[in-house]
């Protein structure tokens, strides 16, 4: 028995990989959807802010992520896009990440088609623009000029009905940054602090700790935190999707990791007691 308990301290990592693989894949195959539970105040804050905007408001969305973080960020991006469209808001989509241009199409076009939204009237995609902070600052003066009067499809921005009402940040009711990097900090530091643009962020769970101080200081109107935040938002807009489905896998995977930690500690204490008894 003692030997068996000692072995718990050094389980072959391949077994851990195998168990985690099964824990992640099986809930997807079984289409297992556990209830998401209580919604985080930071997620609800984003939802409530969009709810209270007058219909027709322009919401700017920056899709600053790549396929690596897409499983975590795309569900929340789709849920927020759906919410904005359902409330009859208009969307100005952009990215400061080179791979974000195709992320916009994946997240935006599908929902827009689903809800019969018209390009140029209900939403515009200005695509990727290099320059980071310079782009953020420039948009505060003249959005069309920063993008050289051209959208991601090569069409003239100034000819689009939606862009007639959009000159600079004064015409943007809310800016949401979906990011797996430090760009939300640049949006807060330059667009919010300089131009007073209201900002929300949707980020990967590992990044959320960096942004909680900004939400607490009201420099962010809200924060959608990882896959859990995505699942919560999907529930809030009544469109459960990949976020809710992913939470089941994450639940079981987290539980198993905790189980492995407990097993490792049992092995550690048994080994330590045995070595103390020997000395």
């Amino acid at each position, binding site marked *: 028995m003692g030997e068996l308990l000692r072995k718990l301290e050094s389980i072959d990592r391949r077994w851990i990989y195998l168990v985690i*693989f099964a824990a992640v894949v099986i809930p997807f195959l079984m289409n297992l959807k556990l209830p998401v*539970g209580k919604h985080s105040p930071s997620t609800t804050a984003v939802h409530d802010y969009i709810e209270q905007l007058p219909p027709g408001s322009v919401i700017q969305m920056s899709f600053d992520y790549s396929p690596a973080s897409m499983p975590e960020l795309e569900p929340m991006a789709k849920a927020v896009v759906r919410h904005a469209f359902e409330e009859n808001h208009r969307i100005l989509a952009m990215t400061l990440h080179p791979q974000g241009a195709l992320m916009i199409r994946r997240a935006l076009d599908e929902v827009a088609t689903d809800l019969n939204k018209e390009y140029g009237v209900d939403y515009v995609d200005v695509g990727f623009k290099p*320059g980071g902070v*310079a*782009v953020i600052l*420039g948009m505060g003066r003249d959005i069309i000029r*920063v993008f050289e009067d051209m959208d991601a499809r090569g069409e003239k921005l100034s000819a689009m009905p939606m862009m007639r009402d959009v000159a600079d940040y004064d015409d943007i009711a809310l800016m949401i940054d979906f990011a797996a990097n430090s760009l939300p900090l640049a949006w807060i530091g330059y667009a919010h602090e300089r131009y007073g643009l209201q900002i929300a962020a949707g980020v990967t769970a590992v990044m959320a700790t960096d942004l909680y101080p900004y939400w607490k200081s009201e420099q962010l109107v809200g924060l959608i935190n990882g896959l859990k935040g995505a699942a919560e938002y999907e529930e809030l807009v009544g469109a459960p999707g990949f976020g809710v489905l992913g939470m089941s896998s994450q639940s079981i995977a987290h539980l198993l990791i905790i189980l492995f930690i407990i097993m490792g*500690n049992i092995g*550690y*204490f048994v080994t330590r007691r045995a070595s103390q008894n020997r000395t």
Partner: protein
Amino acid sequence: MIVQFFVPHAVGTQGYELLLQWARIVGAFALVLGIGSLFRTHWDKIRRRRPQYGYSAVTLLSFGLMVWAGIVYGTGEGGLGQRLTEMQNGTAFEWLFDNVQVPLDATMFSLLAFFIASAAYRTFRARNVEATLLLVTAVIVMLGRVPIGEMIYEKMPEVYEWIMQYPAVAGKRGILFGVALGSIATSLRIILGIERSHLGG
């Protein structure tokens, strides 16, 4: 730039606009420089037959393929990609992005789950009080972030929120203040000529 932030005079604003344009142009050229550097590094590795140069060859081939797909067939609708598969709309570039880059990139990131599970098992040991505190916090955060945590203990999400909103924010703010003060001090040392190590002095 700092002066015009506080004094919005026409002269300052014009200079600011000009600098912003320069910054955007430099940003675009930085992409070109990055591509040039990537090409030179990997080409050099292949030419000298350095260890694992095969990966460099794959990098350059993939790079060339994406550039070829983007330039020759464009990024609009109705390109080669549409002919490659009837199920997928878009161009060759989009087809390659959706069917090669997205799964490869997602796979790389997904490996984190396995490494984190293995690392958590090996490192979270209650060796002393500090390690035990870290372990307990990690377990609460892991449980608080998933629905099953709420099934185990109803208030688990609230405990998680408290950890994130108070101890985590306090720690993070401390780090932020430290970094900000350190940056100001270093900047002042460089501006005043006290710090010259970046010049090789």
